[in-house]
């Protein structure tokens, strides 16, 4: 695939906060090729969350274009974006965002409920996604019965269950200790290496950003830095009963 997975140009996003006009993004050009592992850094209010929302098709830019695998998506309707999210994009959040009443497997099944996948297929794919993040034995646990790292792995399983081309992770290690953070980053790297899923990761922590292949930095709605990661971090050898 020669063309870039994500092609963003002249991206502008403005909000009205009361009477004040806030310019969250002031013209961002960014190209993320397929199979990239990108870390987005910057202080709060720098516009990185806004960028993530637009890349995740949760929000629309005020101006500019956004091509996802060559398809212009900035102008899609709400439902069009919903369909795109469930088929092409996986989300991982800082707060896990699992539904507390559903067990791990049912949480992972959630994206497939909305695209009409028949129940037996849903079950099978959910279990295999859970197995790929090392949670095969926890399928019937509720989120409250799982540790933070395990919950985040359920969330990752949910993000990959529909075989997306892109995973957007918004500070996925923000609520986790450093050992667990490294494990989670290891999973991301593995998904990126083995399945070629494009990863975009927002983080505050420089050592977490070192797990990526490329780091960009935002300040006041502009991209101020874009550099490759020279010496990539790798997680320590996996522990069997980790988490």
């Amino acid at each position, binding site marked *: 695939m020669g063309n870039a997975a994500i092609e963003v140009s002249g991206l502008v996003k403005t909000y009205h906060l009361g009477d004040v006009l806030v310019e969250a993004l002031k013209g961002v050009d960014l190209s993320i090729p397929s199979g990239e592992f990108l870390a987005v850094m910057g202080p709060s209010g720098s516009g990185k969350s806004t960028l993530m929302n637009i890349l995740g098709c949760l929000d629309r830019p005020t101006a500019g274009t956004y091509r996802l695998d060559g398809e212009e998506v900035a102008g899609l309707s709400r*439902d069009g974006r919903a369909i795109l999210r469930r088929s092409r994009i996986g989300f991982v959040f800082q707060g896990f965002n699992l539904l507390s009443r559903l067990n791990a497997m049912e949480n992972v099944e959630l994206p497939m409920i909305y695209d*009409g996948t028949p129940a037996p297929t849903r079950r099978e794919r959910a279990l295999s996604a859970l197995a790929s993040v090392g949670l095969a034995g926890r399928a019937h646990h509720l989120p409250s019965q799982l540790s933070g790292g395990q919950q985040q792995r359920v969330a990752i399983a949910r993000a990959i269950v529909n075989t997306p081309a892109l995973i957007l992770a918004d500070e996925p290690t923000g609520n986790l200790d450093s050992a667990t953070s490294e494990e989670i980053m290891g999973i991301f790297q593995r998904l990126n290496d083995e399945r070629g899923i494009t990863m975009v990761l927002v983080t505050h922590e420089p050592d977490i950003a070192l797990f990526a292949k490329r780091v960009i930095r935002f300040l006041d709605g502009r991209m101020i830095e874009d550099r490759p990661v020279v010496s990539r971090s790798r997680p320590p050898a996996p522990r069997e009963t980790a988490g």
Partner: protein
Amino acid sequence: MNLYSAGKVAFRSLRANKMRSILTMLGMIIGVAAVIIMVAIGEGANQRISAQIASVGSNLLLVLPGSTTSGGLRSGFGGAPTLTMADARAVGKELSSVRAASPTMRSTGPVVYGNQNWSTILQGAAPEFLEMREWKVVSGRNFTAQETDAASKVCLLGQTVSDFLFGIEDPVGKIVRIKRSPFTVVGILDRKGQSPQGQDQDDVVVLPITTMQKKLSGSAHVGAVGVIMVQAVDGDRVKEAERQVIELLRQRHRIGQGGTDDFSVRNLSEMLALAESATRIMSLLLGGIASVSLLVGGIGIMNIMLVSVTERTREIGIRMAVGARERDILSQFLIEAVILALTGGAVGIVLGAGGAVLTSQFAGWTTVISPAAVVLAFGFSAAVGVFFGFYPARKASRMDPIEALRYE
């Protein structure tokens, strides 16, 4: 998302808040139960009126002998014997709008069989009388015109009289004594039940009016009759019959212009129709009042659904992020509301039916649970669910996923 998955999701979230769901349903339960009971009571009252109409006979007029001044005393209608057999015959034969007419006479007296005796109403009538009152002979036969002309000593017994005098014995062909004269029982009348005034209509002996005049009453006015019962050809011509009867009798009694009638005509069907429309208004009113509680139940559902949508803002955000469309969220909450309403409705129907049965047992009212009312109540509950669930569901479906995800 298909309906089955949506239903499962909705059902789970209702189960997660059991107490709240049950309390919300309670509004619907009470509303639907009230509607079912009220409609059952109204329907029962209607049926009772209809049964009474049927028991009296349809399209009937009563001609009562009128008041006359005698010796300074004005007796009321029916007080003076101004109607005759000849009048009855003329009314029955000469008028186009009249199907049949029967002269009648009533008195009371003891009826004796063996060592049993029973004091009852003696009803003198023409053979047409039974047919006019839609009164069947269940055993034996009616008396004939010949028997009437010959003033034969034959009679028909009402069920009550038959029961008291004969018990399980078959009375047909037996001889009873009425005021000491022997009468042959030729038939037994069908059970009629209570009259609109609450009298036992089966406590009666029917015999030819001629026999009654000649053999039983020592009346001074020979040939005089009590009430003439008139049946119009059909329901549309009752008014016409009334007019014709009045005209004919005025002519026959030689009452000039401006003279006072010495008889009066009562329209029985009209009185009952009036009673019927009164009960209909009554039952509409009852149903209307009960519907208000259904409305209150619906508002309860809306209220809880709004709370639930707000509480679950984050869940909505997550569902949207993983790809739920507006209509997926909308249907999820709408189905929840409909499940609440329908479950409440179903329980309400059962309780309402039970309540109606209890009402008829303890209060002694006739209640009728019509399938139409049940279907209507169920359909109405679903409609309440959709109507009151729509606004909260739409509110949920219109949320901004980013805001919803940020909601604490």
